[in-house]
């Protein structure tokens, strides 16, 4: 269904105006987030330059001055905003010579790849299972998926990861246990990430299918003499999937932030891990850079999903 012919769009101009407005709001949002995080992170106690040796105090103080961290906070904030406008996040404090931009450019793709793989594998599988178990309620498959959901809910991910490693690396020697070189390294983390997705979306889709299943228009479709498959595919699934779309935005955003636990266990060079480490190291610039970047990603994702939703669901009026 093309964008123009859909009745809910009152022509291009209103849409463009809408997009523009949303864009400005998004910018404001990013700025707010950046500000909040700036002050939040500065509230963390400690001095980023202290390494385990207390005799380095002079050095630490020298560096504090050198990086202008002894200036009043507002000055630093202004400087930070200035750099932000130029999209320059500066250099890491804890790791001399490491540029925040480089880290993002180099490792966001990793997080993204993992997220995309997990989504491409997890969500369709989940939806499919959900549909099947809704269609065959009370069948073995239905109970199977329910079991899966319970298992994935009742076992912490680090336990799950360890089990996967022991099975696939230690016992079967199929995939490497940890690291990041080629595709074979991505398999275990992907499985680990997507199991949760599968379970969640399976449940979600199942309930949605059952809800839609109660609707009158399915009866109408049946009265037209359509085959069950056609009814399910063209009427039931189609209406059931819509609510998933809104959910998708946050889901993707969440995954793009990277999962600390998974990344730590499989030592995946992902942003989620760097973010936590940088906060633990009080690496202000790195932490801030990552937060702001992730904020941008999330905001963008939501923005796109809203547009997408406006397109796929005619009932939603845009603007």
């Amino acid at each position: 269904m093309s964008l123009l012919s859909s009745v809910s769009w009152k022509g291009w101009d209103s849409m463009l105006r809408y997009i523009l407005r949303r864009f400005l709001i998004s910018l404001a949002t990013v700025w707010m987030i950046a500000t909040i995080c700036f002050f939040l992170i500065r509230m963390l106690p400690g001095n980023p330059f202290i390494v385990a040796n207390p005799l380095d105090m002079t050095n630490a103080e020298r560096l504090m001055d050198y990086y202008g961290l002894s200036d009043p906070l507002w000055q630093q904030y202004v400087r930070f905003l200035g750099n932000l406008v130029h999209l320059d996040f500066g250099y890491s404090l804890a790791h001399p010579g490491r540029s925040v931009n480089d880290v993002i450019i180099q490792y966001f793709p990793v997080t993204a790849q993992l997220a995309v793989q997990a989504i491409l594998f997890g969500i369709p599988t989940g939806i499919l299972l959900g549909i099947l178990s809704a269609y065959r309620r009370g069948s073995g498959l239905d109970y199977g998926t329910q079991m899966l959901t319970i298992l994935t809910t009742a076992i912490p991910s680090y336990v799950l990861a360890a089990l996967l490693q022991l099975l696939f690396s230690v016992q079967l020697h199929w995939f490497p246990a940890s690291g990041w070189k080629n595709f074979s390294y991505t398999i275990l983390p992907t499985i680990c990430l997507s199991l949760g997705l599968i379970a969640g979306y399976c449940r979600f889709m199942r309930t949605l299918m059952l809800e839609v299943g109660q609707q009158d228009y399915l009866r109408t479709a049946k009265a037209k003499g359509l085959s069950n498959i056609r009814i399910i595919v063209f009427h039931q699934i189609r209406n059931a999937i819509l609510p998933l779309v809104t959910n998708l935005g946050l889901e993707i955003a969440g995954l793009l932030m990277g999962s600390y636990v998974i990344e730590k266990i499989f030592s995946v060079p992902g942003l989620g891990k760097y973010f936590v480490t940088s906060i633990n190291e009080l690496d202000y610039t790195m932490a801030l850079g990552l937060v702001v970047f992730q904020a941008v990603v999330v905001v963008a994702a939501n923005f796109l999903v809203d547009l997408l939703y406006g397109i796929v669901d005619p009932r939603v009026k845009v603007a």
Partner: protein
Amino acid sequence: MDTRELDFTPVPESSRDADQIVRPSTRYWPEVWKRLFRNRLAVFCLILIAVIAVLAIVAPILSPYAYDEADLMASNLAPCREHPFGTDKTGRDMWTRVWVGARASLLIGFLGALAPFLLGTVIGATSGWCGGWVDMVIMRICDIMLCIPSMIYLILLLIVMGGSVQSMVLAMALSGWMGSARGFRGRVMQFKNREFTLAARLQGASGARIVFRHILPNILGNIAVGLSSAVPGAIFMEAGMSYIGLGVTPPRTSLGQLSTEGINFFMLPSKFHLFLFPALVISLMIFAFFMFGNCLRDALDPRLRDEEYNARRLRSLRRALRRGKKVQA
């Protein structure tokens, strides 16, 4: 033409009640409870939760050992009579530790599920009820909060306040209210213009009163379900935090912490108990809450369950009928 003996004497109105055959009209909640307690699984889960809760409260008090009492001479004992769950590497009694941990996890589970919800409800209600710019502002804040990785507040709070149950709960409340706020706002919006709300309004009831006396009951069911399924989430959050090293600080402990420490031993028969018992208890806990949530949902909305419940039996029944048998339902 039948020849049965029939009595055609009229029966006076008074002697029969026109409604006598009508089923007694049933009220909502009693029905729900009836359905709930008819469901074996639900009862089992309730009992499980109760047992764990009771043990968590009582076991540490009865146990002869303190949960943080180290005894280097009795380190790494396998489960035995005086140490039912064995001891850890500094000889602390695992039985006591597990139940003290369960205490923390349960607290965090309950409060961690409740706190964000309450916060969210209040905010969502205000936003939904007031509408206009208030709504706009609150929803913007909501969006912004959703974009900030909750890791920041968590770490900050846990460093500033020290890793304790309170700080965990506070952190969860601060990082988790957005979802329920949005949901509740939607509900309020939806109910705002319903007849009964208007009626209440006409009787001059205040906004807050209407929201909490008239609207809340209407969605109590979903809330109950939401809460009971949020508990495992909260418990897990704590476990994850402990994995990162931000959980409750030692010597205080939680199941998350214990199982995280234990996970490294689960290949090691001699220390397997360090992993087994905490993991078992936490999994049982999560399972119980999760399943109970499901049962509650079914109890609140029996239609789906009825179908599932009968699907199998009815298929066979219909088949039999096709074969032209006489079937008793």
